[in-house]
């Protein structure tokens, strides 16, 4: 834990110089360096990290390096097998599949990042409030969370994305008429906004519970109370001890959550309730081409495999982070 390191502000008076020298010789390492080292030793986590980096790179620069426009149809070349022109072939509407996969990565990462930002912000704020304030505030927040998780989250997300489509469309049109921002006028983006809301609506509950539990236990921990008794400034307690202890479970569950959110998004899109066809999502790419599985299996396998590998990578990364940031939980 962090407390072995941070107190080394030099030898106290009266100690022998040899002890002081020995004390200096111990290299200072932060919690994060420790974690990084444990992480690098874990092969699965490294592989997961590499996959995650590639997926994120695909999302960020993919659309610029993609060989074709992902929306352009070439009706003379429909459902072609992979070739030199089209590395992954073309789909049933003659669109270049590589470019669509790249744009699917953008959708997956974009949705996952925004959903996780929204739900951690909401979850951490509400969870910390519930933990600190207690009493009826705690009760209300916990009850709301329970009600939201009263049914499986995919059902909730599907329900919200269907019922909220029209209000969100109207709201965005209204916003467009006031701001004239081009992004609000494109139908493709409506799906994104719907996904953010529909998935975050249940996703935050887990983070709120986690943070609440953390705050409740940490508040009563001996070392926090001891520091308070010793007169360590509040700011030091929070930054040096409360935050590192409370944040690592959050980081772990966020990184484990990326894969889950990607799965939820692509499942919804596969069902036709998420990102709608002209826009590319790995989920709707599978469902668009599902009727051709017998003749052009690659059209179904490619987006599916990419999705599976991405989820796999993020899950491994989350697992590795869990081991690295929770030295107490190491089992093997």
């Amino acid at each position: 834990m962090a407390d072995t390191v941070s107190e080394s502000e030099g030898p106290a008076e009266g100690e022998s110089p040899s002890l002081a020298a020995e004390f200096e010789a111990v290299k200072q390492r932060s919690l994060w360096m420790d974690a990084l080292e444990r992480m690098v030793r874990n092969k699965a986590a490294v592989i997961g990290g590499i996959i995650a980096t590639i997926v994120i790179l695909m999302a960020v620069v993919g659309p610029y390096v993609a060989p074709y426009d992902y929306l352009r149809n070439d009706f003379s070349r429909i459902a072609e097998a992979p070739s030199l022109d089209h590395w992954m072939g073309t789909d049933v509407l003659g669109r270049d599949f590589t470019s669509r996969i790249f744009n699917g990565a953008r959708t997956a990462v974009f949705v996952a990042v925004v959903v996780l930002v929204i739900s951690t912000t909401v979850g951490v704020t509400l969870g910390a409030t519930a933990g600190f304030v207690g009493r009826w505030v705690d009760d209300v927040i916990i009850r709301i969370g329970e009600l939201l998780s009263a049914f499986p989250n995919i059902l909730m997300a599907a329900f919200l994305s269907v019922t909220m489509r029209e209000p969100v469309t109207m709201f965005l049109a209204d916003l467009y008429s006031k701001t004239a921002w081009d992004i609000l006028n494109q139908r493709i983006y409506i799906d994104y906004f719907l996904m953010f809301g529909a998935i975050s609506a249940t996703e935050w509950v887990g983070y709120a519970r986690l943070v609440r539990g953390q705050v409740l236990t940490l508040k009563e921990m001996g070392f926090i109370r001891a520091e308070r008794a010793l007169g360590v400034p509040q700011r030091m307690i929070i930054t040096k001890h409360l935050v590192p202890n409370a944040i690592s479970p959050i980081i772990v569950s966020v990184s484990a959550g990326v894969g889950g959110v990607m799965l939820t998004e692509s499942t919804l899109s596969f069902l036709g309730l998420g990102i709608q066809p002209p826009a590319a999502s790995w989920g709707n790419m599978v469902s668009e081409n599902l009727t051709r599985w017998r003749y052009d299996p690659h059209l179904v396998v490619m987006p599916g495999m990419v999705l599976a590998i991405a989820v796999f990578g993020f899950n491994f990364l989350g697992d590795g982070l869990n081991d690295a940031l929770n030295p107490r939980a190491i089992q093997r």
Partner: protein
Amino acid sequence: MFVFVVRRVILFIPVLFGVLVGTFAFIHYGPGDPLSIMFGEDDYENDPEILARLRKIYGLDRPFFIQFGDYVCGGLCVPDARNEGIIKGDFGKSLRSQRDISAIIRASLPISAQMGLAAFMILYLVGVPLGILAAVKQNTWIDYWIVAGSIAVASVPIFVLGPMVMIVVVLKLQVMDTPVGWEGLFSTNAILPVALLSLGGMLGVVRMTRAGILEVVRQGYVRTARAKGLRERMVISRHILRNALTPVLTGFGPTLAGFLTGAFLVELVFGIPGFANAFISAFQGRDFPMILAGTMLGTFMWIISNLAVDLLYGVMDPRVRYE
């Protein structure tokens, strides 16, 4: 025990009612006009008179609470009711097909239920032994393969796994025809859907069984049982398994949620006319009475299964007491 069950059942009512009010209000205030879904946008739009008459016929001009009362308890609560009310098992009519929703449910739910139960049994019959094997052979290649394999399977969504398995089994191996539709549980068509459905929860069951056993094996009472000369079989079945399997049972909830999602995907991929499929097409077609019925039924089953988990927990673990 009995009092506990009764109290839990009574507590269902406010939860179900809350969900009902919430979903009904969402549907009432959220999306567009049900008439436009029934008849399409352009047919009536020019004629407000026809529109008003249709609204009157379907009772859509009444205030929210009257419509809600009509939906819940029909003629008992509201004069001039359109429905029998869900308390009599009438969920209204589907906007799209104009069929009675309760008839749709009666036709489709048994298919989904059979599939779910079969998958559930396979899941535990395969998953628990695999978990035990992994724990017994801990840190050998058997353990690694079981754990890594179940993680790999869990990372691949069913809607990807389904077509891929079909490509292998139907196109490459050619051992069966394309499985489409439903011809009863004991036909070749049902093999792939049920297997895929059970794979969805495999990781959870394997992981929990393995972790449970590894934890229990190191306990003092297991050593005591061995030390007093009990046969190994007795030690495993009485002392280890019983304690190790309790967490596996409590993990039943997430497993069920996985089944629900899995059922949507499996039924869609294999074209099975089950409940999840009917429900998904309701979602896609914005058939709101159908969505409402499905949500209520889903919540109901969810709550019932949670209660079942709690009760089973008490049976398995004598330390749990209900008062």
